[in-house]
C-alpha cells in the first residue's frame, strides 16, 4: 500500500469523524433552541432538528467524497502529512461554513417565530380623536 492510499484512508477517517462530531453538536444543541421556537412542541422540534442534521451530513459527506482525489503522487511521510493537512483544512472550513449556515437557519426560524409579538418600528408623530365608523 503506497502513501497515496494511506493518505486517502486517513483523510476519510478524520473527515468523517469531524463531520459526525459537528453533526452531533448541532443536533444536541439545536434542540433546546427549536423547542423554544415551536412553543414547546417537542415532536415538531425533534423532527425539524433531525431533518436539518440529515441535510448537514449529506452536504458534508458529499463534499468529502468529491474532494477525495489528490491529483499528485505522495512519496514520503512529509508529503502525506502536508497533503492530509491541506485536505482536512478545507473540510474543516466547509464544515464551519455549513455550521454557521445552520445557525443562521435556526436564528431565522426563531426570528420569524417572535415576529407576531414585535412592537411597531417607529413612534407615532401625534395623536388624534377617533370616532367609530
Amino acid at each position, binding site marked *: 500500500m503506497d502513501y497515496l492510499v494511506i493518505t486517502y484512508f486517513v483523510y476519510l477517517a478524520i473527515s468523517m469523524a469531524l463531520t459526525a462530531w459537528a453533526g452531533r453538536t448541532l443536533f444536541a444543541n439545536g434542540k433546546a433552541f427549536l423547542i423554544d421556537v415551536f412553543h414547546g412542541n417537542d415532536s415538531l422540534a425533534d423532527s425539524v432538528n433531525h431533518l436539518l442534521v440529515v441535510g448537514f451530513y449529506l452536504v458534508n459527506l458529499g463534499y468529502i467524497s468529491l474532494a477525495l482525489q489528490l491529483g499528485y503522487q505522495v512519496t514520503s511521510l512529509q508529503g502525506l502529512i502536508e497533503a492530509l493537512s491541506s485536505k482536512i483544512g478545507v473540510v474543516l472550513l466547509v464544515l464551519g461554513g455549513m455550521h454557521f449556515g445552520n445557525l443562521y437557519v435556526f436564528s431565522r426560524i426563531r426570528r420569524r417565530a417572535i415576529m407576531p409579538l414585535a412592537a411597531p418600528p417607529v413612534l*407615532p408623530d401625534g395623536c*388624534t380623536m377617533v*370616532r367609530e365608523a
Partner: protein
Amino acid sequence: MIMSLTILFDTHCDLCRRIVIWLESQPKYVEMLFVPAASDEARHRFPQFDHDATLRDLHVVSHRGDVYRGAKAWLMCLWAMRDYREWSLRLATPELMPLARRVIAKVSSNRFRFAGYRSPLQRESLDLREAH
C-alpha cells in the same frame, strides 16, 4: 397593542390606488382599513385632523388614534403585513431610516409623475395660476 390601522390614501393618485390593491391582498398581522384621504368618511372618523396634509403625505392612524406620517406611515404599513414586518424593523434602524425617508419622500413627491395624474392640491394651484 395595535389592533387596526386606518390608511388615509390619495384616491387621485394611480400609484397609491395600485399600492392599496396590493396591500389588501397581503396576509396581515393587524387589520388594515383603507379610507380615501380628505373624504367625508375620513373627516367623520378623525374630526380633529388636518385633512389637507393627508393629500400631501400618506397618513396612517391606529385604532387608538396614534398618527403616523410620511415615511413612518409606510413603515407601519410594512409592519402590519406578515411577509414584511421584518423589513419594517430593519428599515427603522438608525442606519437605514434616513435612506428609507429619502426614498419614500422621493417616490411620494413624484407619485403623480409616475402615473400622470395631478393631486387636487396641485390642480387647485394650477387653476389659480391660470386664472391670474
